[in-house]
């Protein structure tokens, strides 16, 4: 059967299980858009290509499936770079399809030509330029395979216009299955880990995004419950272990809980699973878990011994490793002696009591933490939360509690302002029946605000909880704490009237300026059938605490009490 490149593209997408893509048309994409017009793939028309990639990323994080974005050549392609780098840092499986000028014009500085393969080489897991129509099917299948296998990541495929228009014989190919079974821990090492757990009096688990990406949350919970080890999870790992469980310590690191950071600093065994010892987690490396034997499980060998030198390196995907550990625990009928951990649990309880996660309540000003607490109460923790980047992100990580994986979507590695809202659109496409809420700041939300039109046109009723303090809050916080309150270029009081903006886009806009209005506004916004933007005028100079100073050891935290009282 003779088919056009564009037709083959659609067929491959269907075969790979793609039912929705996020895109923006352009001259070199006309053949593809003509096929989309005929076909049954849902296309979400974004208003900026960065939004398309973040939406595909949000779709991938919420569903575990590969997200797909389709953009045109030149500026369309270069607009995707931030979205791609974002997915790369957080290991998110997406495929970005970029249009390209016809092959005979490549390299001539043709209209809307850019070397997107060259530009994205360092921020994709892999990328391709397809030069012959015969290669379309094979390359696209390979792209999906690379995106989702091993440590997942973004893959870009550059599609010249003439290749999409050319005809070739097409035979459906089977999607590539994983070439080999994921790596598992050697049994000797797994037994050694069992010995370490048995000997330890102060053990803990530190899990990361790899557990969520690897679909290993159930296995993680089982291991923690079998061994009664307290669990902390990085920002990327939130939700893998229930935020309401007694063994839960909260997030570690720069804005982690006091007790998580103290536990890391005092434990004698740290089992790190699917995390990569990011500087925001470790603080000063020399003081990180100084008394602990460290076991590190990661599917990517290059993550092991990169930042922290570990005692037991295990190259394995998280699910296989946890399954091996759990099988041995059950086989050995592992039980924790009654008094073996008592001292450790008492110590953690004491830390928890000493410095719980808290903030100073107010009757006159809306505290941003109070908004999130109320949101948690009203949604009973069942919403999918996305965040922007900065204070809003940290409060969302601290004061909303995540009981399920894939329900907290946040730009961890790259720290991309403007991520949360388009990501929420992607998540809502994946789970139309779930409540999807972007917790935003007034700085970040303006970075991809144009997607409010997308939500209306494609009927994607997400909610925006805007913590509006008129500042670029996190940078202002650093200026307050480390730069003598010189608020250089962080005051953004000059901003649109968000209610009128909501109205202009056809959204429901609501505002709260006093604490007693918070619950009513949230209820109204969440219950509205369509998209809603809730503008909370929060206390302007609230800081995120606890805080480890940049480059400092994580057991030294500013707790903010001096500020609160």
């Amino acid at each position, binding site marked *: 059967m003779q088919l056009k490149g564009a037709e083959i593209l659609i067929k491959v997408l269907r075969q790979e299980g793609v039912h929705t893509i996020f895109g923006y048309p352009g001259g070199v994409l006309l053949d593809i858009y003509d096929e989309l017009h005929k076909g049954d793939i849902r296309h979400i028309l974004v208003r900026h290509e960065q939004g398309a990639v973040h939406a595909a990323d949000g779709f991938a994080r919420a569903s575990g499936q590969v997200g797909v974005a389709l953009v045109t050549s030149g500026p369309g392609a270069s607009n995707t770079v931030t979205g791609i780098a974002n997915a790369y840092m957080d290991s998110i499986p997406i495929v970005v399809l970029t249009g390209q000028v016809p092959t005979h014009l490549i390299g001539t500085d043709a209209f809307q030509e850019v070397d997107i*393969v*060259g530009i994205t*080489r*360092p921020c994709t*897991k*892999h990328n391709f*330029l397809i030069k012959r129509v015969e290669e379309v099917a094979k390359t696209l299948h390979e792209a999906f395979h*690379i995106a989702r296998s091993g440590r997942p990541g973004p893959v870009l495929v550059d599609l010249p216009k003439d290749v999409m228009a050319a005809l070739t014989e097409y035979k459906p190919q089977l999607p590539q299955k994983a070439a080999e079974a994921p790596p598992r821990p050697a049994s000797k090492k797994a037994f050694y880990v069992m010995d370490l757990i048995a000997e330890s009096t102060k053990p803990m688990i530190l899990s990361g995004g790899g557990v969520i990406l690897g679909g290993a949350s159930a296995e993680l919970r089982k291991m923690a419950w079998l061994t009664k080890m307290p669990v902390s999870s990085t920002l990327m790992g939130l939700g893998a272990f229930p935020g309401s469980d007694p063994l839960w310590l909260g997030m570690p690191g720069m804005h982690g809980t006091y007790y998580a950071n103290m536990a890391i600093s005092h434990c004698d065994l740290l089992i790190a699973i699917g995390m990569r010892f990011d500087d925001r987690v470790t603080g000063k490396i020399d003081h990180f878990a100084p008394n602990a034997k460290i076991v590190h499980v990661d599917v*990517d*060998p*290059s993550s092991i*011994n*990169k930042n922290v030198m570990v005692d037991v390196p295990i190259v394995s995907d998280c699910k296989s490793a946890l399954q091996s550990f759990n099988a041995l625990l059950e086989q050995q009928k592992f039980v924790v002696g009654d008094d073996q951990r008592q001292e450790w649990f008492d110590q953690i309880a004491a830390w928890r009591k000493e410095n719980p996660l808290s903030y100073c309540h107010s009757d006159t000003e809306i505290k941003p933490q109070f908004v999130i607490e109320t949101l948690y109460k009203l949604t009973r923790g069942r919403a999918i939360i996305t965040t922007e980047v900065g204070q809003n992100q940290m409060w969302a990580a601290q004061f909303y509690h995540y009981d399920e994986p894939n329900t907290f979507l946040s730009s961890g590695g790259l720290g991309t302002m403007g991520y949360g809202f388009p990501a929420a659109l992607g998540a809502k496409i994946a789970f139309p029946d779930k409540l999807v809420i972007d917790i935003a700041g007034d700085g970040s939300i303006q970075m991809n605000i144009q997607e409010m039109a997308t939500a209306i046109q494609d009927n994607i009723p997400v909610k925006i909880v805007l913590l509006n303090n008129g500042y670029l809050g996190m940078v202002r916080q650093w200026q307050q704490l480390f730069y003598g309150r010189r608020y250089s270029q962080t005051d953004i009081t000059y901003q649109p009237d968000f209610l009128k903006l909501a109205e202009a886009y056809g959204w429901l806009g609501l505002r709260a300026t006093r604490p007693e209005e918070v619950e009513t506004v949230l209820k109204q916004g969440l219950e509205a059938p369509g998209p809603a933007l809730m503008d909370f005028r929060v206390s302007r100079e609230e800081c995120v605490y606890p805080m480890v100073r940049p480059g400092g050891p994580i057991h030294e935290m500013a707790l903010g009490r001096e500020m609160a009282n």
Partner: protein
Amino acid sequence: MEKKEYTLALLVSNKPDVLARVAGILGGRGYNIETLCVDATLDPAYSKIILTVIQDKTTMTKIEKQLIKLIDVHKVTDLTKVESVTRELMLVRMKLSDTNKGLLALIIDTFNGRVVTMNGDNCVIEITGDRALIEKAVASLKPLGIDDMARTGIISLERQN
């Protein structure tokens, strides 16, 4: 940590942008490639890249782990870890004069070199050897007036017992 010269052999796909990917891993992290040699293997679908980097051991391990992550890099061998034969080829163009001819002939003979071409007042000499030998040859030729030179950089092959 002490830095030394490491020679890596990379088996890669013989494709247009593979070299850029490999160079990007090193350059993007601020590591210099000292020498570089590339050609197709017996199977033209693959190329062998041989490159040298001056680094400490820990950094080298990280570089190797990053390189093998590239989809088009199929194997990375640290040739400094295994017993291997190392060669470099150098072409040198020398200005000839009545005063340097005799010494030049002696140097060519000493380093097992040969004259590739001779053209009036200049000649091109070829010398092959390991890096130390080439360095010595350069040092000997320099006082006689090197006009220009080109070096291939190191190639290396594991010995098999």
